[in-house]
């Protein structure tokens, strides 16, 4: 009750400011340097999560104008003004919201932002990353068995790139287990590993593979 009132008061106060709650939210989005969850944003603005989520979707639609084709903007048809898309977009990745430059302008923006330009991953690194993403938490030995080669140096590179991390030790073997990081989700533009493409269409009739695998596990 009390909290509800505070949230209402908060909203009322924000609406009294130039640009209203929408502009206040934008102001906060300007200073975050990693994705912020709707909960964090709501707490910062002293409004409810529901209000913030509405505002976030409004902004997302507004920034994308009418021409957007992004699959995550499902409600774009409800945009109520005919505006050109902005040069930036608001995206929900790795569980949080953040502003990105629009990919159409990648080439131009790239001339200004040298850092962060990451070199492409090698085929070996991509395959190792794929196995870790789908089998996490997983030991090096197991990834190695799936790929058929030693993956030590590739795992080191992926750790250094911040795409995977140590997630403790296997209670049985004591081997270090690896998992993907939230930076990986960010780089993939997805909210969680559950959003990764399904593996099964690529694995015809292999229901028992894991048992096979555990039997031959090193």
């Amino acid at each position, binding site marked *: 009750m009390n909290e509800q009132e505070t949230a209402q008061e908060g909203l009322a106060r924000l609406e009294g400011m130039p640009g209203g709650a929408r502009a206040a939210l934008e102001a906060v*989005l*300007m*200073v975050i*340097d*990693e994705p912020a969850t709707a909960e964090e944003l709501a707490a910062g603005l002293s409004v409810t999560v529901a209000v913030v989520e509405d505002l976030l979707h409004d902004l997302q639609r507004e920034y994308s104008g009418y021409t957007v084709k992004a699959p995550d903007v499902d409600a774009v048809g409800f945009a109520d003004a005919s505006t050109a898309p902005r040069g*930036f*977009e608001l*995206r929900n990745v790795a569980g949080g919201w*953040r*502003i*990105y*430059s*629009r*990919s159409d302008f*990648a080439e131009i*923006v*790239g001339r200004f*932002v040298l850092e*962060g*330009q*990451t070199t*492409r*991953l*090698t*085929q*070996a690194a*991509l*395959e190792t*990353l*794929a*196995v870790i*993403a*789908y089998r996490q938490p997983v030991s*090096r030995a197991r990834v190695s068995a*799936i*790929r*058929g*080669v*030693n993956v*030590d*140096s590739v*795992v*080191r590179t992926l750790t250094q790139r911040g795409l995977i991390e140590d997630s403790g030790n296997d209670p049985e073997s004591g081997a270090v287990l690896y998992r993907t990081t939230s930076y990986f989700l*960010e*780089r*993939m*533009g997805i909210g969680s590993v559950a959003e990764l*493409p399904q*593996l099964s269409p*690529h*694995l*015809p009739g*292999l229901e*028992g*593979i894991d048992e*096979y*695998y555990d039997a*031959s596990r090193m």
Partner: protein
Amino acid sequence: MGPSLAPASEADVPATGEAPDAGTSEARKPGFEVRLANFTGPFDLLLGLISKHKMDITEVALATVTDEFIKYIRRLQELGEDWALDEASEFLVIAATLLDLKAARLLPAGEVEDAEDIALLEARDLLFARLLQYKAFKQIAGILGETLEEEARRYPRQVALEGHFAALLPELVWRHTPEQFAELAATALKPKDAAPAEVGLGHLHAPPVSVKEQAEIMGYRLKLGAPLSFRTLIADAETTLVVVARFLALLEMFRDRVVAFEQPEPLAELTVRWTGDDAEWDSSSLSEEYEAGMEPNNGESSNE
């Protein structure tokens, strides 16, 4: 880098030079190249060979692939490439499995009774399963690569905090002395134990431990002022050898009259106190007699 091979004596050039994902198909010339980088492992190679022959990998007809695979391995041997041991042995395992499969194919159909035959068929199934699994991950890797590339076209806003906001941040609590900070740096700069790229031999010989180094470490800690128990001093010792070295080092330091011991009763906690008034004490005054004893192979440690 592609090690060049001698002209192939066989008419049928191994598939490896022109596998589907080889990218640049080699122009036919007397010599040809095996680009090891084309394949990220034996499964990859095997898949390459299979798709070259447009075979369903669930089909048993692997004889041709087996031949080519073995041929490929031979070429690598001839090259004298310094293959990492595990990689070479992986190739061997697969080559052996393929040979088994070839043998299994020679068995009359429907007459699989022998336990050995069944084992062979199971090995075949296992290999197929692993190959299929690898193939799936390879496809997924392709999708990941495309997604990462597409996503890299979006740049996140991640600007430094505006000055007036940065000024709001609470003052940092800082309790590190320069010495503690240096210790932190030493830990951070120490090369991380590189993952073994070869079979470890560390268990065969205990790594050398220097009494002098251990004396330095304890001298540093004790000079901070507070008396420390021997238990505390050896809390981070990784091996018994280090514990022994530290104990010997303390005896040496006692002889140098820079430390004092306190033990209320036998087997009770042993407390060590720094008593040296010479802040410049260093381990060089230690006698050399232990050095020889504790460091049998006084060479490089196996750090790199």
